[in-house]
């Protein structure tokens, strides 16, 4: 009908993909990015029906219908918090598809040197990607222990399985020697390696690992593309391979970890349990704090002695100005005994030029916390310590700022220092609390810098 329509369409597809990816890498245009990519994908799929020599069209339509509807419905139904595992599982599907294509390719073509080699590589990577992604999914979904699964001799075993995968892969290239069983074993080892490699990785590191598998899937698709001589697949796959690799590095860096460390250290395997207080302290980076602020509808700042020590008041004022310029209302919650002298916070904030109508004392603001998106606790400790609500605590009887009732709390402090009272603060372990470590002045500066980029 339309003889070679698919070639120019694929070119357009690629353009759209790149534009889409470009837009997705800026917060303001991100949303439209996926639309571009989505449109391109729809066209590419449609035009493929007109590929020369296509059979099994009904089967194809049925396959797309089944896979498509499951994927769509599942993705729309799950809770927002379960998104990471969804990414993992869909990525695994892509890897699986790539592996399957390579398998078909290896079964049909009676070998053509380079192309077969690429198909084998695609198959191996696809296999690792699908099984690894599935394990990642299971762990994140809680259907498998989130903690790293380790056993003695784990590393050697993994290396042996990897070598076996490679060996069988090479064998497959020699149709004379290898048969269907070789191919089967090759796939089994590849899939096995994906599983073994993922077991020792803990839940917290999963996003990095998923990103890695995502890049791998991209690579596998590119290799399939080569062997199919389909440059749309080559370009899109390579694009994802490169972008995904860099993304993996960036994500690891944002967690202050190296990739090697994530993959091979079984991080968190020996995590200690805290006797008394449940939950754990969750560090946060200034970049992410900035984003939380950028998308908040209301912000309250609860300053304390640490703001005074850091002399961060000017920076805090600047942050407030910046947020207000983005139409995000900011209030200050001034606790009666914050700091080390009566009115300590007033003096500092006045010095920084914060106008009085921003300041609210405990009684005026406590009711606001439950409706507040983000509370910044800047160097305050005792005055936000929920222990004060408990009889018998050293802080008992002091009315506190109810910051723990807010949707998100970010606590700025340098390290493990305690407040004036010297007692531990369970707020820091709460689910909705994140810790931003570092001198308050520096941390606020960094947030300002990041906010300006958004």
């Amino acid at each position, binding site marked *: 009908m339309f003889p070679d329509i698919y070639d120019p369409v694929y070119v357009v597809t690629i353009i759209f993909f790149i534009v889409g990816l470009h837009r997705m890498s800026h917060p303001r245009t991100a949303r439209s990015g996926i639309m571009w990519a989505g449109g391109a994908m729809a066209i590419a799929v449609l035009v493929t029906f007109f590929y020369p020599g296509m059979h099994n069209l009904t089967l194809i339509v049925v396959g797309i219908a089944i896979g498509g509807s499951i994927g769509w419905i599942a993705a729309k139904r799950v809770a927002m918090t379960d998104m990471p595992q969804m990414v993992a599982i869909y990525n695994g599907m892509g890897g699986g598809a790539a592996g399957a294509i390579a398998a078909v390719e290896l079964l049909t073509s009676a070998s053509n040197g380079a192309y077969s080699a690429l198909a084998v590589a695609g198959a191996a990577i696809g296999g690792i990607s699908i099984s690894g992604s599935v394990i990642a999914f299971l762990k994140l979904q809680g259907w498998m222990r989130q903690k790293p699964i380790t056993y003695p001799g784990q590393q050697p075993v993994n290396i042996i399985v990897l070598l076996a995968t490679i060996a069988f892969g090479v064998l497959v290239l020699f149709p004379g020697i290898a048969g269907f069983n070789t191919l089967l074993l090759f796939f089994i080892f590849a899939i096995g390696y994906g599983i073994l490699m993922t077991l020792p990785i803990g839940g917290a590191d999963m996003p990095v690992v998923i990103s890695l598998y995502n890049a791998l899937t991209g690579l596998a698709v590119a290799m399939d593309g080569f062997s199919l001589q389909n440059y749309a697949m080559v370009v899109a796959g390579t694009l994802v391979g490169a972008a995904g690799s860099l993304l993996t590095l960036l994500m690891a860096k944002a967690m202050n970890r190296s990739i090697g460390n994530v993959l091979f250290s079984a991080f968190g395997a020996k995590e200690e349990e805290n006797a008394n207080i449940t939950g754990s302290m969750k560090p946060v980076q200034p970049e992410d704090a900035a984003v939380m602020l950028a998308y908040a509808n209301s912000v309250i700042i609860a300053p304390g002695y640490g703001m005074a*020590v850091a002399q961060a008041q000017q920076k805090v004022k600047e942050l407030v100005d910046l947020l207000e310029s983005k139409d995000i209302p900011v209030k200050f919650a001034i606790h009666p005994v914050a700091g080390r002298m009566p009115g300590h916070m007033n*003096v500092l904030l006045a010095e920084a030029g914060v106008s009085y109508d921003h300041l609210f004392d405990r009684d005026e603001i406590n009711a606001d916390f439950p409706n507040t998106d983000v509370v910044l606790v800047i160097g305050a400790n005792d005055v936000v310590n929920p222990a004060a609500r408990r009889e018998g605590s050293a802080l008992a009887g002091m009315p506190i700022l109810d910051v723990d009732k807010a949707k998100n709390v970010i606590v700025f402090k340098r390290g493990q220092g305690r407040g004036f009272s010297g007692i531990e603060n369970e707020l820091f372990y709460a689910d909705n609390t994140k810790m931003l470590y570092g001198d308050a002045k520096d941390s606020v500066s960094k947030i300002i810098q990041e906010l300006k980029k958004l």
Partner: protein
Amino acid sequence: MAVTVAVAKEKSEGEKRVALVPEVVSRLTKSGVRVLVESGAGEEAYYTDGAYSSAGAEIMHDRKSILSQADVLLVLQPPAPAEIALLREKAIIIGFMSASKNVESIRKMKERKLTAFALELVPRITRAQSMDALSSQATIGGYKAALVAADYSPKLLPMLTTAAGTIRPAKVLILGAGVAGLMAIATARRLGAMVEAYDVRRAAGEQVRSLGARFLELQIDAEAAGGYARELTPEEKQKEQAMVNEAVSQADAVITTANIPGRKAPRLISKEMVSGMKPGSVIVDLAAETGGNCELTKAGGVVVENDVTIVGPLNLPGQIPFHASQMYSKNLQSFLGLVIDREGKLAVNFDDEILKGSLMVHDGEIRHAQTKELVEGRQ
């Protein structure tokens, strides 16, 4: 039976404050407490009788009947012995007792089997912060001290570059960086002075710097229990003296707030040091009441010696009577929470750490050791 809380006009000289402000009165009357206020009690702090009566207080002109009806008498300073005699037996007095200045009154309380809580003895635990009248009044005192220094100084505090030459900023030195000292630092800095401060407690260093001022470091750590300072060793005193000496001679204004509770204030500035100061400099001695941090201080007076003006104000918080009364009154409100229950009835739990700590006279006995010695030792 609902408790009757009474406030009489303060009689001590220069005392413009009042123990309860209308805002707090209305909270008390709402919870069923009967509040008696002497006519004109809040006058000098600019709280009118009208404001009190609309807050639910009964305004009484007869001082005697107020005193005789009170279950709880709220004061800034204890009444004269003669007036204490008018109080019912077992009546409660709450306020600053300043035992050393009011020996006779305390004795009378003991004789009359009154119960007296001294706010200056409230332990400085977290729960008691809202009752800490020492802090609230020191806050105001520190603020006012900086104003007094600026007022007596023949110089501008801030730096000004003008067509008529550049005025260099004044150097203000704060000795003793407790509550009052910190507030004085903040206020002097607000006015544009270059501020340095010194305290024997090392922890004060961080606090001083947290207000943007410079801390004079001397390698001594002398913090004792409860955040109060201990007395210094002679050698420490000497080193300190040398450093302070130097800083004093450079200063345009010195504000001293050093105190050691229950003792005479430490002597930080001698007569010779004053003679080494620049003409026109000013010393404001907040410790005048307890003997003064400067040798030349005349409590309640102003001394000019060698072109240096030495101000020894008594009761500085009393010079900001409106807000000083408001804060004191809030402190009392919190304290009354330990003495009066939610239905407005008397319910004193003498085992409570705060009440135990601040109980000075009870049941014909002086409960505070130092005061007991002071009162009965003299007997």
